[in-house]
């Protein structure tokens, strides 16, 4: 592909593959089959957006040490927080900053305390399996995020003993470290997510996860009945196709930039965003899912719909998530959560 580009435009010399770095701004190595041409095309447009947003955000934050929540800020967040302000905004919006300031030294105390051996061992098993494709997580890199990741997870495991460590937390903490570049901030953001923003996805019973999977199912039944019918027909349980969406908050499901844009809203608006994203993916690709002729087709389609141009164009995708699923009130979700949680508990899963 790159040779072809070379051949046809000798004057402009290099192909997209040669112009674009092999490692993305977050340290992830681009996969072998990465489509450099379309990425370049996409970025040429997105960079304009980023620049515009960056200017707007600088003005917004100018002279303010704190950002109050407002409709304007919400709109700004939905259009994407520039990377340079991301950590700040996540911390402020989620209440993590406040916690951090109110508990000086708490994080270090957790690290210094005696560690639970079993917890440490469980975390260690996953350290080298967390973003091996990210150069910052290599053992040889300096600073090595594998070490700070270990600290954040061990500290959190002792901070929230009911959760301890659950797979998926490694990926979430990894992203938090990439963005904040500060383990204490990452710790408090993790605390905000697991303690306040998300239901109990990560506790041993995983009741919040089971509930939200079924909530999504109910929402799909109303908003994309065809898909619901296909799922029912082939007896595909929701957990099978969407558990990773919830547990990893779309990490490794959607492209990095898209995930970060989703998280902008997640920290600001709460867990409702997860349903918006999931419903958008499902509704937008309804026709494709409906072609499933058998159980494995359904599973395959659910993998396919998380790839391609639709999700890579993060700016357009984020606009879609607020239009495609239609109205989705917090009250609806909470009501569904209550009903379904009760159903699940009474069925003694």
């Amino acid at each position, binding site marked *: 592909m790159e040779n072809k580009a070379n051949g046809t435009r000798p004057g402009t010399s290099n192909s997209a593959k040669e112009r674009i770095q092999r490692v993305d701004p977050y340290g992830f190595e681009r996969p072998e089959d990465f489509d450099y041409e379309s990425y370049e095309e996409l970025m040429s447009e997105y960079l304009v957006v980023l620049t515009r947003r960056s200017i707007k955000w600088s003005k917004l934050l100018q002279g303010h040490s704190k950002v109050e929540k407002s409709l304007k800020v919400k709109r700004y967040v939905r259009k994407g927080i520039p990377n340079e302000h991301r950590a700040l905004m996540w911390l402020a919006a989620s209440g993590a900053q406040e916690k951090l300031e109110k508990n000086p030294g708490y994080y270090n105390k957790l690290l210094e305390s005696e560690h639970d051996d079993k917890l440490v061992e469980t975390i260690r098993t996953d350290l080298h399996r*967390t973003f*091996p494709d990210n150069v910052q997580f290599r053992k040889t890199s300096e600073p090595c995020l594998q070490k700070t990741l270990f600290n954040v997870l061990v500290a959190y495991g002792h901070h929230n003993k009911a959760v301890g460590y659950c797979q998926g937390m490694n990926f979430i903490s990894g992203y938090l470290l990439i963005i904040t570049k500060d383990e204490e901030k990452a710790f408090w953001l993790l605390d905000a997510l697991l303690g306040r923003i998300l239901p109990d996805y990560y506790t041993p019973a995983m009741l919040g996860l089971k509930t939200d999977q079924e909530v999504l199912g109910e929402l799909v039944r109303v908003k994309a009945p065809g898909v619901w019918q296909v799922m029912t027909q082939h*007896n595909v349980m929701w957990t099978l196709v969407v558990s990773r969406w919830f547990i990893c908050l779309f990490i490794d499901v959607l492209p990095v930039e898209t995930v970060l844009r989703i998280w902008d809203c997640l920290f600001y608006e709460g867990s409702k965003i997860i349903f918006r994203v999931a419903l958008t993916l499902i509704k937008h690709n309804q026709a494709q899912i409906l072609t499933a002729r058998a159980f494995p087709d359904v599973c395959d389609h659910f993998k396919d719909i998380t790839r391609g141009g639709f999700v890579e164009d993060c700016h357009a995708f984020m606009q879609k998530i607020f239009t495609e699923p239609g109205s989705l009130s917090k009250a609806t979700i909470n009501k569904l959560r209550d009903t379904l949680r009760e159903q699940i508990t009474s069925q003694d899963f």
Partner: protein
Amino acid sequence: MRGLCVAIADLQKLFAHGGQAWEPNGQPVLRTALPYLHRINREVDVNGVYGSRRTRRGEKCQERSNIVGGPIRPHGHDSGVQFSFLKRVIDCHSAKPVRTMSRKKTAKGKNSTSGTAAKDKDNGKSGKGTTGAEALSNGVVHPSRPSLSNSGEFYDIAFKVMLVGDSGVGKTCLLVRFKDGAFLAGSFISTVGIDFRNKVLNIDGVKVKLQIWDTAGQERFRSVTHAYYRDAHALLLLYDVTNKTSFDNIQAWLTEIHDYAQQDVVLMLLGNKADSTHERVVKREEGEKLAKEFGVPFMETSAKSGLNVDLAFTAVAKELKHRSMKEPSEPKFQLHEYVNKEMTKTTGCCGS
């Protein structure tokens, strides 16, 4: 644990009966509580205790199917070749060896059949107004034309295999080695939830599609993943020979399997990472002993060197294919013997 030993030993006995299961009084066990199980007219039941457990669990399954999306619906019409979304091409999910006893829900399968008419008779008893062909849906896929799997490969029959075992024992690596022949040295990520890959094997001229489910090993995910156990035709239970805890946990896994998997599930114990001679803490003999105790076939594998990887999956595929396709007069496929023979043939070092 003792109860489990008995159960598995009974399982072995049942295999010897060609998979037919009867109550001690000679009556087939009917699952009246579960309409979708009616199609399978026989249920494994070795003793009274067992039967009651099964029923209870069966009800549980039904409850779950209700929350997930309501009870399984009756069949739409098989409309031939063109596929509306109502048309279901039977696949591994609903594929189920006919001759073996099963608790599996079956209502969603159907298929065109050929060369398997004899099997319909077995299912005829199940009532529920299913036609012979539909009744076959709890059977293996025998399409008149080979089916096209989603990876674009043709296959004759399909099965669902699950990989289970502690976190970090190498389930994903084993699967990738089998699927792509590659070893994921330091480039794999921990599996969250559940994932699957397909591979079509040619077993004695029959294209057998294995849909292989890779599960998260962490204990809390079990409550999420054991929902799939009941649909699995085979389970590969892994431990890591360099990790004593993963070996010690095998008994707990067997209990889990006993509680949630089909009783006739094909089970094999694998000691993975056998290439790590220096770090090894579990001797091959220990694995063999444990496997013998529970009456399951055993081998050591290495996703890194490829040792026994193909053999493990092939043996399972052979067993499943044999179970589903053999004529009554045919002798039983001896999985144990096959495994032992193949291992001495191919590796020498790990054969028993």
